[in-house]
């Protein structure tokens, strides 16, 4: 391993990510996953779920995580996740409440469609210090409106953030507006069993205001015009922030005993030719 480490260090910089756009061949599903890993975060985007983030690890926290007999983690060497869609339900299929995932819901006249239900494929490119993943456009059909939406993810080297741009390329009614709800539902842990969430602090802030709550499983929510929503997760020494550009409403949602997670989000109304830009940011906090 030491020899490999020397070889790796000689060819890589500290902020340089490892990116892999994986396509299933063996199982014949043709679906794609995109893995991104750098010293700030590791995440997995599932193109079979419209590019939803199904795994997220806050490497930026650089957790001290000793493993072995005599340590708090005798056998579990996993680095904690904030999102793990398989251990923590992901996009809901039939249980009440949602699991951990980072996706976007589109709403028009009370009809709601989550991008998790769109199957698409992606293209990867490197633009200077930024890795860009561009998804093939997907069609969202509402009862009386069809929109074509494109998603682009940008990973700027060393930023600890994932920038998401959603653009309505076409609309069957160019004057119609659709509400985009960019959200991350997260928690923390290394297994499928929920951890104590009472140390988590949820907050909202814009230029002039700041308020928040301590997690108490009471299903509370709050929103604020402009600004950003954040969650401080002390057990994994991480601050998670969802920020958005332009006119929008930021919000958070607390969970409850049977859905012990939190949601951070931003809502904005856009029409044909318009876009919504958000950033998911991870920072060390202790």
């Amino acid at each position: 391993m030491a020899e490999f480490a020397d070889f790796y260090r000689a060819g890589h910089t500290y902020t340089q990510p490892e990116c892999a756009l994986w396509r299933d061949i063996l199982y014949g599903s043709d679906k794609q996953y995109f893995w991104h890993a750098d010293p700030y975060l590791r995440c997995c985007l599932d193109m079979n779920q419209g590019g939803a983030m199904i795994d997220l690890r806050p490497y930026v926290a650089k957790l001290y995580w000793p493993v072995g007999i005599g340590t708090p983690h005798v056998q579990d060497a996993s680095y904690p996740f904030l999102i793990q869609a398989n251990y923590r339900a992901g996009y809901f299929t039939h249980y009440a409440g949602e699991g951990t995932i980072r996706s976007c819901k589109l709403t028009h006249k009370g009809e709601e469609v989550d991008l998790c239900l769109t199957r698409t494929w992606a293209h990867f490119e490197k633009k200077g210090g930024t890795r860009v993943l561009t998804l093939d456009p997907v069609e969202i059909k509402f009862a009386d409106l069809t929109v074509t939406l494109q998603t682009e993810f940008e990973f700027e080297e060393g930023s600890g953030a994932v920038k998401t741009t959603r653009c309505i390329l076409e609309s069957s009614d160019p004057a119609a507006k659709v509400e985009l709800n960019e959200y991350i539902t997260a928690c923390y842990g290394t297994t499928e069993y929920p951890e104590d969430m009472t140390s988590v602090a949820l907050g909202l802030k814009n230029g002039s205001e700041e308020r928040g709550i301590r997690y108490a499983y009471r299903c509370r929510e709050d929103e604020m015009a402009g600004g950003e929503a954040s969650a401080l997760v002390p057990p994994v020494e991480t601050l998670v922030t969802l920020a958005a550009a332009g006119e929008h409403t930021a919000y958070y949602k607390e969970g409850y005993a049977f859905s012990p997670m939190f949601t951070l989000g931003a809502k904005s109304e856009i029409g044909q030719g318009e876009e919504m830009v958000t950033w998911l940011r991870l920072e060390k906090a202790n």
Partner: protein
Amino acid sequence: MAQAGKGKLNFRCPACFMRDLDIDMFYDEDSREYYCLRCCYTGSEADVQQKNRMARFRYRAMAKRFQRFDTR
């Protein structure tokens, strides 16, 4: 391609179910297949039915009628 929805029948994923994971599938109208959000399984209704039959091999006493519950 439009968003997926629920099919006319609500099938669970046969591949996940063989691992005792209860995952409902969605239906992709365009490719006329059910697919799993969790694993790589995709298949037509006929294929799902056939794989479900396969998964039943564990329930050896499935067709047996139990009349008494106090014996060993």
